[in-house]
C-alpha cells in the first residue's frame, strides 16, 4: 500500500496527486473536479463549509481517515448462485468475481463518461467522485429489452477509499431491476456516483441495501433523468455503517413520468444516516413520491431532507413526501426537512412527518395474547416497515430485504 500521510480532505487530494495521469477519461475535467473539491472540502470536516444541503450531517469523522492506495488482493469468490452479479471493490470492478456475461455491461474504466460537470462547483461529493473515479459499472439496456435482475455488490476495504462511477442507460421501453448491496469491514470511505437515464416508457427499479462496516462512511450520489412515461423506483435500506448519506437528484423530464424514492433507515448505536432527495418536475402529469421510514435505536441519528420542485410547465403534478419515524430510545434523533417549491398552479403536492415510540396499546394487545415483549416489539417494527416493502414485487428481492430487517433486529437485541 502506498503511504499517504495526510488524512481527510488533504488525504483525498494527495491520493489524486498520486493517481493523476493514470486515471481514465478527460484529465482537464479531473483537474476541474480537484479544484472544486479543494475549494469545497468535506462538509463539516476540517476546512469544509457547511451548506444548507449538509445542515444535519457532518463529515468530521472523515477528517482523520487515511486513504492509502490499495493494490487489491485477489480475494475470494462469494459463491453466489445469482447469475447476473457485478462486483466492485473499493471502486474497482473485479472481473474474476463477477458473472462472465451480463448483457449490456462494460466497465467504466473502458468507457469513461462524466455527465453532470455543471454541478461540480456546488456538490463536494460529486467533485470528489469525479476527481478520483477509476472504475465502475456501465449498463446499457437496449430499446425494449428486459435485463431482469442484476446485482451490483460494492465492498469497501479498510484504510482506503472507493469512488466508483456507475452509468445506467435504459432505452425506450427497457426494463431493469438493479439490486445494489454495499458491504465491508473496518474504516473506509465509499463515494459512489450513479448517473442514470431512463428513456420513454422504460422502467428501472433500483433497490439498495447498505450494510457497510461499523466504522465506514458511505456517501452516494444518484442523478436520474426520466423521460415521458418512464419510471424510476428506488428503495434504499440502510442497516449498518457509521455515516451513510444518499443524495438523490431526480428529474422528471417528460410527461407522465414517475419517480419513487423510498428510504428505510434502521439505525443503532451512534450511527448516522441521511436521506436527501430533490425531485424536479419539469413536465406535466408527473408523479413523485418520497417516503422514508426510520427506526432509530440508542443514540442514532436519522435525517430526511426532501424537496419537490415543480416548474411552470409541470401542470397536474402529483407530488407526495412523507417521513415516519419510530424512536426506540429517548436519545435517538430524527431531523426532517420537507421543502416544496411550486411554480405551476394546477398541482397536488403534500408532505407530512410523524415521530413516535411504539404504541403502548398495540404492544399490550400482543403481549396479552402470550407474545413475549421482544417478539411483540419486533412484530410491530416489522409491521411498520412492511408498508415500505410493499412496493417491492420481486420475491427474491423482498426476501432479501425482510432478511436484512430481521438480522438488524436480532443484532440490536443481542
Amino acid at each position, binding site marked *: 500500500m502506498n503511504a499517504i500521510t495526510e488524512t481527510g480532505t488533504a488525504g483525498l487530494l494527495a491520493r489524486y496527486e498520486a493517481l493523476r495521469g493514470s486515471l481514465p477519461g478527460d484529465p482537464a475535467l479531473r483537474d476541474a473536479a480537484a479544484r472544486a473539491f479543494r475549494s469545497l472540502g468535506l462538509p463539516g470536516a476540517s476546512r469544509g463549509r457547511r451548506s444548507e444541503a449538509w445542515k444535519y450531517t457532518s463529515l468530521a469523522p472523515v477528517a482523520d481517515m487515511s486513504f492509502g492506495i490499495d493494490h487489491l488482493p485477489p480475494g475470494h469468490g462469494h459463491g453466489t448462485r445469482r447469475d447476473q452479479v457485478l462486483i466492485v471493490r473499493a471502486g474497482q470492478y473485479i472481473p474474476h468475481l463477477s458473472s462472465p456475461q451480463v448483457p449490456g455491461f462494460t466497465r467504466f474504466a473502458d468507457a469513461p463518461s462524466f455527465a453532470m460537470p455543471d454541478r461540480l462547483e456546488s456538490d463536494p461529493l460529486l467533485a470528489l467522485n469525479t476527481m478520483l473515479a477509476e472504475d465502475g459499472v456501465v449498463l446499457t439496456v437496449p430499446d425494449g429489452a428486459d435485463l431482469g435482475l442484476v446485482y451490483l455488490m460494492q465492498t469497501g476495504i479498510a484504510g482506503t477509499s472507493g469512488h466508483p462511477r456507475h452509468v445506467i442507460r435504459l432505452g425506450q421501453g427497457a426494463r431493469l431491476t438493479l439490486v445494489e448491496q454495499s458491504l465491508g469491514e473496518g474504516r473506509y470511505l465509499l463515494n459512489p456516483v450513479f448517473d442514470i437515464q431512463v428513456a420513454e416508457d422504460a422502467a428501472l427499479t433500483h433497490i439498495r441495501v447498505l450494510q457497510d462496516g461499523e466504522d465506514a462512511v458511505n456517501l452516494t450520489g444518484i442523478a436520474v433523468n426520466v423521460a415521458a412515461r418512464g419510471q424510476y423506483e428506488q428503495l434504499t435500506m440502510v442497516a449498518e455503517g457509521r455515516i451513510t448519506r444518499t443524495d438523490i437528484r431526480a428529474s422528471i423530464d417528460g410527461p407522465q413520468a414517475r419517480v419513487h424514492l423510498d428510504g428505510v433507515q434502521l439505525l443503532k448505536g451512534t450511527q448516522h444516516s441521511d436521506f436527501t432527495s430533490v425531485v424536479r418536475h419539469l413536465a406535466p402529469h408527473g408523479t413523485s413520491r418520497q417516503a422514508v421510514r426510520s427506526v432509530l435505536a440508542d443514540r442514532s441519528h436519522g435525517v430526511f431532507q426532501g424537496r419537490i420542485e415543480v416548474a411552470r410547465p409541470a401542470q397536474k403534478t402529483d407530488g407526495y413526501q412523507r417521513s415516519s419515524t419510530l424512536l426506540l430510545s429517548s436519545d435517538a434523533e430524527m431531523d426532517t426537512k420537507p421543502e416544496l417549491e411550486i411554480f405551476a398552479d394546477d398541482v397536488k403536492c403534500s408532505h407530512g412527518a410523524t415521530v413516535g415510540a411504539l404504541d*403502548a*396499546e*398495540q404492544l*399490550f*394487545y*400482543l*403481549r*396479552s*395474547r*402470550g*407474545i*413475549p*415483549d421482544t*417478539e*411483540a416489539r419486533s*412484530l*410491530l417494527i*416489522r*409491521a*411498520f*416497515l*412492511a*408498508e415500505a416493502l410493499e412496493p417491492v414485487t420481486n420475491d427474491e428481492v423482498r426476501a432479501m430485504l425482510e432478511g436484512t430487517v430481521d438480522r438488524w433486529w436480532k443484532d440490536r437485541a443481542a
Partner: protein
Amino acid sequence: MLEIRGLAASINDKPILHGIDLTVPQGEVHAIMGPNGSGKSTLAYVLSGREDYAVTAGSVSFNDRDLLDMEPEERAAAGVFLAFQAPIELPGVGNANFLRTALNALRRSRGETELDAVQFLKLARAEAKRLAMPEDMLRRNVNVGFSGGEKKRNEVLQMAILRPKLAILDETDSGLDIDALKIVADGVNALRGPDFSALVITHHQRLLDHIVPDRVHVLSAGRIVRSGGAELAKQLEKSGYAAVQAEAA
C-alpha cells in the same frame, strides 16, 4: 382457581377499585355487571396486566400462582385471556400471522411443538367458519377496517384458537346485533367445560340470556355490592342499578 382478595387499583393516581373480593371456581362462568364508571374494565385490565394501572392493595391468585407478579405474556401462558372492549388495530400485521405467532408462543411456553402454517390455517379456518366469519378476515390486517361486530368476533376467534383457562370478556356484547350476539355467545358456550372459567363483564342482561352465568356480581364504585345467581341479572334489568346501589348503601 381465581381468587381476588381486597384488590385496590388506581390509574394516574385516581383510585378506581376499592377492595374487590371475588372467587371464580374452576369450570364456572361469573358475570360482572355494573353501571358505567364502576370499575369493570379496570378490573379486566388489572387481571390481564396492563401497565398503566397500579395495584395499591390486595392479591390475586390464579391456580395458586401470584397473578399480579406476572408479565402480561406470562398470564396468557398461564391461561388468562382478555377479550378487549375496544380491540386494537395492528396495521401491517396479518391476522393469520398474529394468531399463529400468539398460538405458537403459548405452545412454546407449555413445551408443545409449534404449528406450521398449513396446520395452523386448517385450525384457524375451521374456527372462523364456526364463528361465521368470512375467510378473508384471516388475510386482512388485525382489526384494520373491521366493523365493530367483526372486531368482537375476531376476539372470540382468538379465544377459540388460544383456548384459555380463564376468559375475561369485557363488554363483548356492546355494538353487536342480535345475530352476532348469538354467534359470539355460541363461541363462548362451546368452550365451557370443567377446565374453562369466564368473567363476563357486561352492562346489559341481554348477553346473559345466551351465556347463562353460574354467579352474578354487581360492581359499584369499585366494590362488589351484591352477588347472586343468574336470576340477579334479570332482577337488575327490571329494577336498575340504582335500587341495588341504594340497597347496598
